[in-house]
């Protein structure tokens, strides 16, 4: 009888081993919101306002089911600030953020996602951060109404 059932037992053991060895099955839940969703730099005199601050935005995020895994919020622009044929390099836009850590300051890029915040594990409660974007002002900026899209991405790899 044991001879008949030993293959089955072996299979079950193997299954159990696989189940134990495999990473715990988790239900990651990510929440991310940006308010407001506009970052507006008003017109300003370059001599008196060398750096134009936009009204702050609130980044709300939540990470659950992440165990001890890392999480990160990044920013990347769709392109330079553009108004017709006139452009302002997006690298003229920088930001500061609180609380730091996990948030950090940085400079916008249209080619490489920049880290806005990072951490590990879970953020059980919805948490807010304040981000202030600044545009470096210059007399060389041509007149126009410029725009660019900025994508915020929360990942929990």
């Amino acid at each position: 009888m044991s001879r008949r059932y030993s293959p089955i037992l072996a299979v079950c053991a193997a299954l159990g081993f696989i189940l134990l060895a495999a990473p715990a099955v988790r239900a990651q839940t990510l929440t991310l919101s940006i308010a407001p969703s506009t970052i507006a730099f008003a017109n300003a005199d370059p001599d008196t306002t060398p750096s134009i601050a936009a009204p702050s935005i609130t980044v709300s995020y939540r990470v659950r089911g992440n165990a001890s895994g890392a999480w990160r919020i990044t920013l990347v622009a769709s392109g330079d600030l553009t108004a017709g044929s006139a452009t302002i390099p997006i690298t003229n836009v920088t930001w500061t953020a609180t609380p730091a850590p996990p948030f950090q300051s940085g400079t916008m890029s249209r080619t490489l996602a920049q880290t806005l915040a990072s951490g590990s594990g879970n953020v059980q409660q919805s948490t807010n951060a304040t981000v202030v974007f600044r545009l470096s002002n210059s007399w060389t900026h041509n007149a126009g109404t410029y725009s660019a899209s900025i994508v915020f991405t929360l990942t929990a790899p």
Partner: protein
Amino acid sequence: MTTIRRSLFGLVLVALAAAQALGAASTTSNVTVSATVAATAKLSLSSSTVSFANADPDATPSITATEGAITITAKGKTSTGSTITLTVLAADDLKSGTDSIAITNLTWTSSGAGFVAGTMNKSSAQSVASWTNSGSRAGTQTYALANSWSYPTGSYTATATYTLTAP
């Protein structure tokens, strides 16, 4: 198995209207210019000597200066309507030791706008030329010495001073 829960969704594209129309812009700045013009007089003579050669009074009753005409350039700046004057005054008669020839024997003729003929004098300045308002003028004077058998021999000299005045 994984789950992704999407929270409040907002993909709002808002292009903020400009706080003010882009429009054109201009600015002005003033500069005050001032220029000072002061009364000025400048006189130049083509020759500072006038000489008269010995001559037979019968053949040459009036001896013309050897140098010929003197060119006079008078430049003056004055107020509008004012008169610029050029005069000449001899210091004394023509003298050779104790001998003298009355300076009034020296006369001149002139050419050029504003210039006038005249007779030298040792007592009062004589008008050579005059003009109204500022300007640069030029003319000539041709001196002549009245000849006479009564002149004692000698080398006579006299100094005449020209005065240009721009009031």
